[in-house]
């Protein structure tokens, strides 16, 4: 068998780009972006305001959010077209339709493996939608230009202004950069919204599959009169489940937000520390490697968000009544 000699030229391009970014970053020293917990306002005046909720501002995480939604819709459109085309001709999916079919088959099998074939069609859309949306929101952050192009703002304790961008007389205290674009999932509003959707739909699916017997999970009064002491214990444990539902919202939201926020802090802080410790040339080669790590973290966190949604939904569909039925069956 004759083996074709592989010429991996693409990795040399990547290495060349990394060295290029190192040299360019040494000549034009980049200004450090502002590390802020919340998104910055692009326009000071609110866009519109609602009576109870309050004013709505155009913050710098809104444009990436719109871009994420548009990307998902465009991808869905082309996948649909490709699959319809293959359905009309020879039933062989090609191109993007094939790719998406393989991907969705993988995660559908995963859902079916942990929930069973009957409940999987109910849970799967939520799992796939949340995972896909979070994946796009996480990966869009890695495009060059995000968190690095913006307006300079004079602050009391900022960083020294770069040469070439400002007039010499203007350098006073220091500046920081308010970027135009900030990753959609680095905004706590986005992650809280996804977490609320996930937890709320978990309750809805629980009621859908078990009826009102689902609420026995929270107000467990079935054994309260049969076995007084342990019944009361069960009731208290059921009340703890309510707290657990609320803590799910917090942990969902802050897991995604914390990982993504740690990403921008890492990309901003590590090069600064390195260029302060060694020289300004060395500090600029690391961000490209940190971006690879960010790619990994973004994919993993999107997967974990979807997977946890799926697992909690699967848990909500299995009531205590079924478990007891199983135990009785074992005893017989």
């Amino acid at each position: 068998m004759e083996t074709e000699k592989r010429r991996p030229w693409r990795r040399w391009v990547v290495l060349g780009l990394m060295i290029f970014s190192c040299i360019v970053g040494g000549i034009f020293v980049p200004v450090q972006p502002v590390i802020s917990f919340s998104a910055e306002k692009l326009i000071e005046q609110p866009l519109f305001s609602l009576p109870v909720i309050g004013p709505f501002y155009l913050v710098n995480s809104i444009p990436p959010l719109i871009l994420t939604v548009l990307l998902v819709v465009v991808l869905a459109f082309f996948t649909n077209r490709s699959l319809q085309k293959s359905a009309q001709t020879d039933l062989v999916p090609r191109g993007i339709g094939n790719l998406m079919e393989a991907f969705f088959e993988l995660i559908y099998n995963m859902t079916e493996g942990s929930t069973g074939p009957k409940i999987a069609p109910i849970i799967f859309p939520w799992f796939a939608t949340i995972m896909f949306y979070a994946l796009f929101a996480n990966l869009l952050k890695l495009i060059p230009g995000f968190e690095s192009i913006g307006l300079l703002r004079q602050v009391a304790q900022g960083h020294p202004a770069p040469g070439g961008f400002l007039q010499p007389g203007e350098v006073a205290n220091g500046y920081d950069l308010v970027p135009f674009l900030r990753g959609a999932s680095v905004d706590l509003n986005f992650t809280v919204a996804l977490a609320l959707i996930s937890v709320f739909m978990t309750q809805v699916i629980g009621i859908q599959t078990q009826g009102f017997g689902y609420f026995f999970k929270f107000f467990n009064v079935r054994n309260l009169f049969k076995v007084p002491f342990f019944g009361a214990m069960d009731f208290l444990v059921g009340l703890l489940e309510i707290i657990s539902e609320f803590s799910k919202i917090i942990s969902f939201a802050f897991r995604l937000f914390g990982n993504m926020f740690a990403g921008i802090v890492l990309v901003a802080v590590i090069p600064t520390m390195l260029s302060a410790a060694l020289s300004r040339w060395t500090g600029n080669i690391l961000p490209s490697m940190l971006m690879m790590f960010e790619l990994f973290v973004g994919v993993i966190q999107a997967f974990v968000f979807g997977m946890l949604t799926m697992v909690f939904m699967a848990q909500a569909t299995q009531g205590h009544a079924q478990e007891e039925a199983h135990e009785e069956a074992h005893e017989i």
Partner: protein
Amino acid sequence: MTGSILDAARFIGAGLAMIGAAGAGVGIGLSVQGALGGMARNPDAYGNLLTNMILGIAFSEAIAIYCMVIAFLMLFKVV
């Protein structure tokens, strides 16, 4: 160097709050160790073990997330 002693206390407090993440790290490591051992012994139970492992990781990771929330509250003067 300017700044109040309150700022210094905030930064120290945020750092101390994140010590709690160590426990969560140990917990996640132990649960993954158990799940991987189970998967190696019984590969058929892979799907079931993976689900429960991720669930367990989520619960122990929640502790680290609460630590992080406290650290954020101190760091960014939310409260």
